[in-house]
């Protein structure tokens, strides 16, 4: 636990000092919500229609900002190779993965919250009643997305295409999470209360756990070997 906290402190400290990922994430979130809102306003959609497309707009904005900012995750580990040093100091690959995962989860959560608030602000929406369940669902989506992205990003680092190949590898694998998330958010917006026993919640949680388990077990094979 001590090692994990030390690793997490290191990752968060790097982030707070450089502010690279968080700035990119928040900047992209504001930009995407503004652009999408302009598009929606230009289409002169009625308020009910705007609400019904909100989950898709939110997910697209989240995907774009997250995919771009995730490419920075291992920038320092690959620049000066401190990963070998970390492993020699007693940190297991699983702990390195969990630390990276938690840091990414934090930044992505801030980014998604900014996107959600951006849409509420730009489109003048009132979603106070479903804000909490929607945040919970997006939290589940971010969990799965970050688990898989933390494993896929280092794979793209060794590719000749680097950041360009990331969406091609990452996005198809996140499909079950996005599909489930959009379905639940659409139901929430339609006025159906959140049902924790729904198959979509099971799908989201199942894939979160599965991707997390695979990520932890394959991290050393992907990054270290």
């Amino acid at each position, binding site marked *: 636990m001590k090692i994990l906290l030390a690793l997490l402190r290191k990752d968060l400290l790097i982030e707070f000092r450089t502010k690279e990922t968080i700035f990119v994430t928040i900047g992209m979130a504001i930009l995407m919500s503004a652009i999408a809102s302009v598009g929606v306003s230009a289409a002169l959609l009625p308020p009910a229609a705007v609400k019904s497309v909100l989950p898709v707009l939110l997910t697209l904005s989240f995907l774009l900002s997250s995919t771009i900012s995730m490419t920075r995750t291992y920038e320092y580990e690959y620049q000066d190779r401190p990963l070998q040093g970390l492993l020699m100091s007693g940190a297991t690959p699983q702990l390195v993965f969990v630390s990276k995962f938690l840091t990414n989860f934090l930044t992505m959560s801030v980014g998604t919250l900014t996107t959600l608030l951006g849409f509420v602000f730009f489109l003048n929406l009132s979603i106070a009643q479903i804000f909490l369940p929607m945040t919970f669902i997006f939290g589940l989506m971010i969990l799965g997305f970050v688990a898989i992205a933390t494993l896929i990003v280092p794979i793209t680092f*060794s*590719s000749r295409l680097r950041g360009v*190949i990331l969406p091609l*590898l990452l996005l*198809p694998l996140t499909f*079950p999470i996005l599909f489930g998330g959009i379905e639940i958010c659409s139901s929430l917006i339609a006025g159906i209360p959140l049902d924790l026993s729904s*198959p979509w919640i099971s799908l989201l949680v199942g894939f979160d756990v599965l991707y997390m388990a695979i990520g932890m077990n394959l991290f050393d*094979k992907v990054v270290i*070997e």
Partner: protein
Amino acid sequence: MKPSLFKKAETALHLLSIALGLYALYLVFMVVPNERVMGPVQRIFYFHVGAAMATYCSVGLIFLSALLHFATRNRFWDTLSVAAAEVGLLFCAVVMATGMIWGHAAWNTWFRWEPRLVSFLVLMLILIGINLLRIFGDKGKVANHAAAFAILAAVNVPLVIWSIDLLPQSAQLHPKVVQDQGLKDPSFVKAMLFGMLAMVSLQFSLVFVRTKVESVLRLKDSI
């Protein structure tokens, strides 16, 4: 296995796939009657289902070879994985193409938002991803990376299979032919079984050939 025995097994596999393929074609075009509602276009179903089975077998092979690669570090499993990924993509494309042709005749649209269609498209995108990784990946690390990616890809297959049950039937149009006992004529069942066998044996034949080609290419690169 002795080289002569290996050669005989390979020849037997190729001959079996040719024989099964010819017999399936005979059944589909000469024996099976026209389906009452869809007419002749329904015959594409026998290729569609067979190609889907071959895709699942390929993904199974990719998954198995990924696990065995990590367990044994034998280069053969990586070679097999290359072959299975390419052949899997080929059959997945066949499934999509035949499905779209059938869809255009039945639903008057090439593609629609339907869980089974979308999840199979996602499976195809994942297989494209594996093949792109092979092309653009670092030669020294791509075996591990592709194996890890293959394991992630394989966990999506159950979703493709069960997606038809996840949503209420009102939300989807993909037919449940076998579950709904839609194959009334015994020749329908026979043609479907032989169509599946033919496609799966063709898939194994192609994987066999591609594995051999990849082994020779790797041998050449190592000299």
